[in-house]
């Protein structure tokens, strides 16, 4: 089975002002798979993830060089419609970042933004997204209540629902479970299992067991470089690079 490459970095460099955070990254992200990015703190995982939807644009003085493509088109091309790109490449952040609105309005925020006005269409999208994020049962009878009244785990699943509501192709998740208890984390991992048939997922995690459980490919970052990448099973059982092995041994004990 040949896999389709949806995102591809070729010699990607990234700078925060004078400081270089990514060095000549070569990495392919296959479509409709879960790809895990692992590595010690400060090695550039978040930076790489935030290049993919150009969230780094918010940081003054930050710039990318080299090639990074989505469906073969340069992400950093001049004149690229960044809003349209971000609509297709959704993001879930480390801390749940719901808006101060009702549960319903949070999920409907994206669709409304993109011009859906009809009540029934919105209702349908909201329900479908909440079901897809495995939180429908818990919130169905309180859609009009403030979203910030939910528990942390529920908030994070609601963030996933909000991201799914604009029907992205890719979902970027930056340590999306690191602030959650084991039960909520387990729920989200199960959820990822159901989403990976329809979405391309790129996930940053410090939890090696989580990477091993949910991802089919893994890339190991160190000091702004990709040291090793490959099928998760192979990388975890037979790391080819000494540094990968050292890191995995340190993490898994």
């Amino acid at each position, binding site marked *: 089975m040949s896999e389709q490459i949806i995102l591809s970095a070729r010699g990607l460099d990234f700078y925060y002002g004078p400081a270089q955070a990514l060095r000549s990254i070569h990495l392919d992200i296959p479509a409709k798979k879960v790809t895990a990015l692992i590595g010690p703190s400060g090695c550039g995982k978040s930076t790489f993830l935030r290049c993919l*939807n150009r*969230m780094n644009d*918010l940081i003054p003085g930050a710039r990318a060089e080299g090639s990074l493509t989505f469906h073969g088109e340069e992400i950093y091309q001049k004149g690229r419609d960044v*809003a*349209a*790109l*971000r*609509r*297709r490449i*959704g*993001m879930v*952040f480390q*801390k749940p*970042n*719901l*808006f*101060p609105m009702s549960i319903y309005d949070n999920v409907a*925020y*994206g669709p409304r*933004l*993109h011009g859906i006005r009809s009540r029934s269409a919105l209702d349908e999208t909201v329900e479908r997204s909440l079901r897809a994020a495995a939180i429908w049962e818990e919130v169905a009878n309180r859609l009009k209540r403030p979203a910030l009244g939910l528990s942390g785990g529920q908030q994070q699943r609601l*963030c996933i629902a*909000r*991201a799914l509501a*604009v029907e992205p192709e890719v979902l970027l998740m930056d340590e999306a479970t690191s602030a959650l208890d084991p039960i909520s984390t387990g729920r989200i991992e199960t959820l990822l299992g159901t989403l990976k048939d329809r979405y391309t997922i790129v996930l940053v995690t410090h939890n090696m067991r989580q990477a091993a459980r949910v991802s089919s490919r893994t890339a190991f970052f160190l000091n702004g470089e990709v040291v090793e990448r490959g099928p998760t099973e192979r990388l975890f059982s037979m790391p080819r690079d000494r540094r990968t092995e050292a890191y995995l041994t340190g993490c898994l004990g």
Partner: protein
Amino acid sequence: MNPRHIRDFAAKALLWLSAGAVSALLLALAGYAGFRGAPELSWRFLTGQESILGGTAGILPSVVNTLVVIAVSLAVVLPVGVGAAVYLTEYARNRLFVEGAAFAAGVLSGVPSILYAMIGALVFCDKLGLQKTLLAGSLTLSIMTLPTVLRTTQESLKAAPLSYREGALGLGAGKWPMIRTLILPASVDGIVTGCILAAGRVVGETAVLMYTAGLSMVMQDFSSLQSALDASGATLSTALYVYAKERADFGAAFAVATVLLFLTAAINSLAAAVGRRVRRV
């Protein structure tokens, strides 16, 4: 008692004293004005107007003029100030320009109001031919309060959580939709504060209005647009000046002062209520 407790106690006592002094001063001022003004305050005084022939005193025209000037100057300064603040904090790219604007606003907010009075008289009354009218006065005051509204709005825009921005942009929101739906609502507090401060300065201003809006204490005609544009006269603060300075009628002056205190309190509570209301939506 050990030294830490003593220090703690001393600090608390000092804080309590200064809070007490502020409240006492405020109460004393309000109490004195009320004490001197109350005998003069009557329904007829509040709802009547002055007539030398009829021998009556009344401040209704000034109350109405005050409300008109507040409404018109806020109606101008609010969209202009908030618009400029959004542009400067969210859109402007040129650092020099942004910092220059902040510097100018800082200087302008410290300029004595008599300078605004002269500029208003020159520009609005003369050059633009508005004469001494409530409109000319309101426009001058909106320029005078612009730096305040600009600054408080800018500060609250900057304080809007980054997570809202990331959340909205991450869903493919454009900049303006993000600002309209999340950043501005999160900034309502600061904008309302700016308006209270602006309204406070408008209510307290005399110099500007004496030069640009006139001193008449006769009821103006607001029934048609033309006559409303021509309306001119004293607000409560200017009336207070006229009573105290030109007529040495201190009873009436203190009565006006009492009304001013109530008006200020009313504006503050109204603004607080509006702020609560908007935030809940």
